[in-house]
């Protein structure tokens, strides 16, 4: 088994708070598409309900990011200065070789694919309700044709599954 740490260089000084994970995912997509730096992180404890996600941004870019979110009809609760010690998502990926198959694990989520065909053999782990649904949507599909879990899911488990899928795709496309 090998561990891979993803790049987490961005350190902004602002945080966008959302009602739920799906709103955060939509906003991340809109901000990134517009070319501004952002990163998914945990909201401060007073905003946590159990399955929560926030966006780290540069506070100086607040006006333009507010405009981007408005144009994208992406809803959020508020934008605040970031507190010290705010937790980021687990960025480590673990890759396990099962001979004909490779399993990639991101936090509590795992995807296993066939090395020869690139077909997703199984999805395991997780505890949020969209995971059994995503299992049905992903299993049996070629990696390149599988839907991105972040597009279909609503939860942090889906976000981690998305990261696992991205790594599977990278490996399938010849990455080391």
């Amino acid at each position, binding site marked *: 088994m090998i561990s891979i740490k993803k790049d987490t260089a961005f350190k902004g000084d602002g945080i966008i708070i959302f009602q739920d994970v799906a709103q955060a995912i939509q906003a991340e997509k809109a901000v990134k598409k517009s070319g501004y730096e952002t990163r998914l992180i945990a909201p401060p404890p007073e905003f946590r309900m159990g*399955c929560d996600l926030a966006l780290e941004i540069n506070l100086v870019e607040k006006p333009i990011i507010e405009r981007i979110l408005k144009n994208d009809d992406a809803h959020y609760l508020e934008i605040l200065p970031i507190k010290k010690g705010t937790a*980021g*998502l687990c960025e480590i990926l673990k890759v396990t070789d*099962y001979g004909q198959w490779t399993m990639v694990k991101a*936090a509590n989520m795992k995807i296993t694919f066939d090395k020869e065909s690139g077909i997703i053999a*199984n999805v395991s782990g997780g*505890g949020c*309700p969209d*995971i059994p649904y995503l299992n049905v949507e992903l299993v049996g599909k070629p990696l390149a044709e599988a839907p991105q879990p972040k597009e279909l899911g609503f939860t942090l488990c889906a976000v981690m599954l998305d990261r696992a899928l991205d790594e599977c795709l990278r490996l399938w496309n010849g990455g080391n």
Partner: protein
Amino acid sequence: MMLIVGTIPDEELPMTTGPVGLDGEYLTAGGQRIPRIQGTGAMISAALSLTEYLKLEPPHILVAGDIGDGKGTRQMYNYLIENIEELSPDVLVLHYCMPYMDLMEKLCRVVESCPKKIIMIADAGAMYAAKGAGLADKFDIMTPDPSEIAFLADQKATHPAYIAHHLFECDSSKIPQQIADAYSNKSAANLLLVKGKTDYVASEGMVLASINQPDIPILETIGGTGDTITGLVSAFVYAGYKPFDAAVNAVKTNRIAGEFTQPTPATKVSCIIDSFPEVFEKYLQKWNGVCAT
């Protein structure tokens, strides 16, 4: 009565409750058909397999369709909070759901006020909510996998996605320490069954048993093979086994069923579950009273 509560990945499924039955590849309850796939469906199927074998009353279920928007989760919690005293289950198993800490707090409060002791078991989203809300010690059994025991050991994390890197990165030899940390943080149930390459049964911070044979590594890749362990331990407890014996029986059953099935990562969890009766027939009597390894 054993009551199993969890979401089903079908937006159209209304909240459904009643005793569960089996119809081919589907579970049936309250006039609804529920697939036996990863998650709550796999967990219920495993529990039903044991209750059928032991000729016990089948599990009662409370399920609702939810694909992650939380609507079904809220319906189930609100129903439970209103009705748990009247339902009065002997064993309450909480499984796949949105990890809403506020609803978990309300539920734990009403369960504590019930005149009868209810054995509480949690896995998946319900376990995340209980830990996040600081209520893990209200539970009798929790069944984390290796990333989830790292989550329980991490005092700050409110979801496994936020596990500290050093806890996620370490190898499985550190699991006993993570178990001890989870207990010292009050983030563990009375009994923990940690599912993995080696399964650990622990209480009060101490590992009481570790089981690693037969070793079927492929089981980790198959969605639902952790859910089946949760279903089995719940059903063994409902059948009157002590939590420790129930946990050891559950992991042994799952491992041996894996050996019987000779799975690949593409094997469906229902194939593993279908081997359980053969395992019970061959081993259950042998294990009675001599469960510890």
